[in-house]
C-alpha cells in the first residue's frame, strides 16, 4: 500500500516521529510581569477587543480582530510610541483550520520594546492596508500577497513583487510543492520559445540535485570529458589526465603540468 500523503500540506515531513513524543512549549509569561507591556496592553484593550495576550521570548504577542488592524496600529504608533513596523507577513494554517494568521512586528525605540500584533483571517478574506501609517507596509504587503495570495484593500500598488507578474500560484502556501508545480515547470519554455515548443524542449527539470551522466550538454564527468553533445564515454574508457589540453596548445595559455606545481605554504601578507 502506498504511504498516505496529505494533499493540503505537501511540505517535507519528518520520516519518523515517536508516537508518544509530546513537543514541549516555549514558555509564555503573563503580560502583568512586565510593567511597560501591561500599560500598552491596557491602552489597546481600552479601545479594541483583545482575544489573547502573553509574553514569549521577551516580546509581547497580542491577538486582535482582523478588522481592527489599522486602528490598533494607529493607536500604537501615535499614542504608544511604536514608530516602526519592522516586518509583517502571514502564516498558512489552511490545512489545520482554513485560516491565515497575519502578524505585524512592531518596534518602539523609546521603550526598547517589541510587540507582535496578530490576528486570523479566512482563506478568501481581505485585510486593510496599513500603508497610510507605515510606508514599510507597502512592500511587505505586496510580498505577502505574492507569497500567500492574501488580498490587501486600499493598497497603492497591489502587484507581485518577487515572482514574475504573470506567475500563477503563491509559493509559500503549504499546498505549493518545493520544486514548483506544473505551471512552474513550463513557465520558461512557454515564455521564451512558446507553447508550441513544449514537445521539443520538454518541461524544466527543477530538481536541484539532479545529475545525468548521459546528458553531455549540461554535465561532464571529470576525467571523462567529451565535446558538448557528443556520446558519453564508455564505462571502461581510459581516464583523461588532468593536464589535458587541445592538440597544439592554446594561444597565451601555458600547459598545466601536474608534477611541476607546488603549494606555497606561506602567504605573505
Amino acid at each position, binding site marked *: 500500500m502506498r504511504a498516505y500523503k496529505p494533499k493540503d500540506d505537501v511540505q517535507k515531513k519528518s520520516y519518523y516521529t515517536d508516537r508518544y513524543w509530546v513537543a514541549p512549549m516555549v514558555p509564555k509569561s503573563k503580560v502583568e510581569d512586565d510593567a511597560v507591556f501591561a500599560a500598552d496592553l491596557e491602552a489597546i484593550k481600552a479601545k479594541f477587543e483583545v482575544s489573547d495576550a502573553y509574553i514569549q521570548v521577551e516580546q509581547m504577542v497580542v491577538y486582535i480582530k482582523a478588522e481592527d488592524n489599522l486602528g490598533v496600529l494607529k493607536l500604537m504608533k501615535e499614542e504608544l510610541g511604536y514608530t516602526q513596523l519592522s516586518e509583517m507577513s502571514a502564516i*498558512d494554517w489552511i490545512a489545520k483550520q482554513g485560516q491565515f494568521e497575519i502578524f505585524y*512586528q512592531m518596534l518602539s525605540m523609546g521603550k526598547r520594546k517589541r510587540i507582535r500584533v496578530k490576528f486570523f483571517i479566512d482563506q478568501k478574506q481581505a485585510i486593510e492596508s496599513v500603508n497610510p501609517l507605515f510606508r514599510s507596509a507597502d*512592500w511587505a504587503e505586496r510580498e505577502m500577497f505574492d507569497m500567500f495570495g492574501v488580498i490587501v484593500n486600499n493598497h497603492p500598488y497591489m502587484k507581485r513583487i518577487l515572482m514574475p507578474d504573470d506567475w500563477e500560484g503563491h509559493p509559500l502556501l503549504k499546498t505549493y510543492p518545493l520544486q514548483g508545480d506544473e505551471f512552474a515547470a513550463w513557465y520558461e519554455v512557454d515564455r521564451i520559445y512558446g507553447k508550441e515548443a513544449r514537445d521539443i524542449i520538454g518541461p524544466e527539470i527543477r530538481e536541484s540535485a539532479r545529475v545525468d551522466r548521459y546528458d553531455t550538454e549540461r554535465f561532464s564527468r571529470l576525467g571523462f570529458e567529451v565535446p558538448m553533445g557528443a556520446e558519453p564515454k564508455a564505462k571502461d574508457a581510459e581516464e583523461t589526465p588532468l593536464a589535458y589540453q587541445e592538440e597544439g596548445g592554446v594561444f597565451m595559455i601555458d600547459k598545466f603540468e601536474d608534477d611541476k606545481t607546488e603549494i606555497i605554504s606561506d602567504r605573505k601578507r
Partner: protein
Amino acid sequence: MQQPNRLRPFFENITFDREDNEMIVNFGPQHPSAHGQLRLILHLQQEQIVKAHPDVGYLHRGMEKMGENMIYNEFMPTTDRMDYIASSSNNYGFALAVEKLIDVTVPRRAQVIRMMLLEINRLISHLFWLATTALDIGAMTVFLYAFREREYLMDIIEDYCGARLTHAAIRIGGVPLDIPDNFIPDLKDFLDKLPANIKDYEDLLDTNRIWLMRMENVGIISEEMALSWGCSGPMLRASNVAWDIRKEEPYELYDEVEFEVPYSDKCDNYARYKIYMQEMRESAKILYQTIDMYAETVKNNETELMAHAPQYISAPKLELMTQNYSLMQHFVLVTQGMRPPVGEVYVATESPKGELGFYINSQGGPYPYRLKLRAPSFWHTGILTDLLPGHYIPDVVSIIGTTNIVFGEVDR
C-alpha cells in the same frame, strides 16, 4: 505600448511619450551601479525623475520556502547567500534566533569568537561598500585601496573557516572551531594599520569636490520617512536616530565592550558616508577589546565552544566517542534534526546593513513551520520609490550606492 514604424523605431529600453514629454527608462536589471539585479523603472522629465518603481525579484531563490523544508542545521549555509558580503552576520542572526527558541546559552569563548567574526564581517562589508560606491562615483583609487584591506580581512576569515565569501562559520549553540594560532597576531597587524588606511580614504574623499557635489544634500531621508519605511542601520542613524541594536538590545557580549554609535542630523548621502567611516573605527575598537576578552578566556581555561543541550545540540567529540547514549542522540540529531519546542520567536540583530531579523514559528517538528527573513536591504530598496522623485539621473547612482543594498538579501 510602443507602435514602431519606420520613423519611430522600437527602443527596447526607452518609451517616449510625446504628449507630456515624459520618458520612461529602465535602469537595470543589468546596470553596473545597481549592485545586483535591480530594475528601476524611472519616469523622467528631461533629466529629472518624477516617478520611480524599483522592481526586484531577479535573484529570488525562495529561501523561506527552502527553510521550511530543511532541518535547522541544514539551513545555516543557505543563510550565507542572503547578505553574501557579510555572511557570518546572517549565520549569526539565524543561530541566535534558534538559540532563543531552544533556550541555550553559548559558552563565553564561543561568544567572543562570534563577536570577532561579526565585527570582521562588518569591516568587510563597510570596506566593500566604500569601494563600490566610490567606484560608482568615479573614485577608482579608493576602490583599489579598500579592496586591498578587505582582502586582508578575507584572508583572516579564510584562516578561521576556510571560506572567503560564504563562511558558514557559526553553528547553532556556538562556533565549530577555536581560532587558529596566527589569527590574533594577523588581526592585530591589520587593526594597527586600519586607522591610517581610513585616514587615507578620507583624505581622498572628504573634501574632494566631485565627491561633495555628488554626496552633499543628495538623497535626503527625513527622520519621519526613515522610520516609516522601516529603515535601520546606517540608513537610520544618518537620519538623526541614534539606534543601534548592539547598544539598545545587546546580544552576545556587546554590553561589555565600549563603543560609540555614530549618528548624524544631516540625513544626506554624505552623512551616511561619514557614518560608515566612523563605524569602521568603532568596529576596530570592539575588535581590540575582543582580543583581550579572548586572552582572558584562555587564562581562565574556558575551552568550551558549543553549548551543552544534548537533546538539541550534539555532544562534544569526547562524549560521542565514549558514551553510547550521546552517540545515539547525535545520530538522531544528524539524520532527523533537532526539534525545538512549540512557539515562535523574532530576533533582530544589527547586521552591517541594518536590522536583520529572523522570525521562526516552530510547531515542534524538525522543520520550521514558518520562517520569515527580515532583511534590511528590502526596505532600503523600497524607500527608493519615495526618495528618487525630484532627483536627477546621476543622483540615482550615488543614492543606490549609499543605501548599501545587496540583492541576495532583498530577494532572498
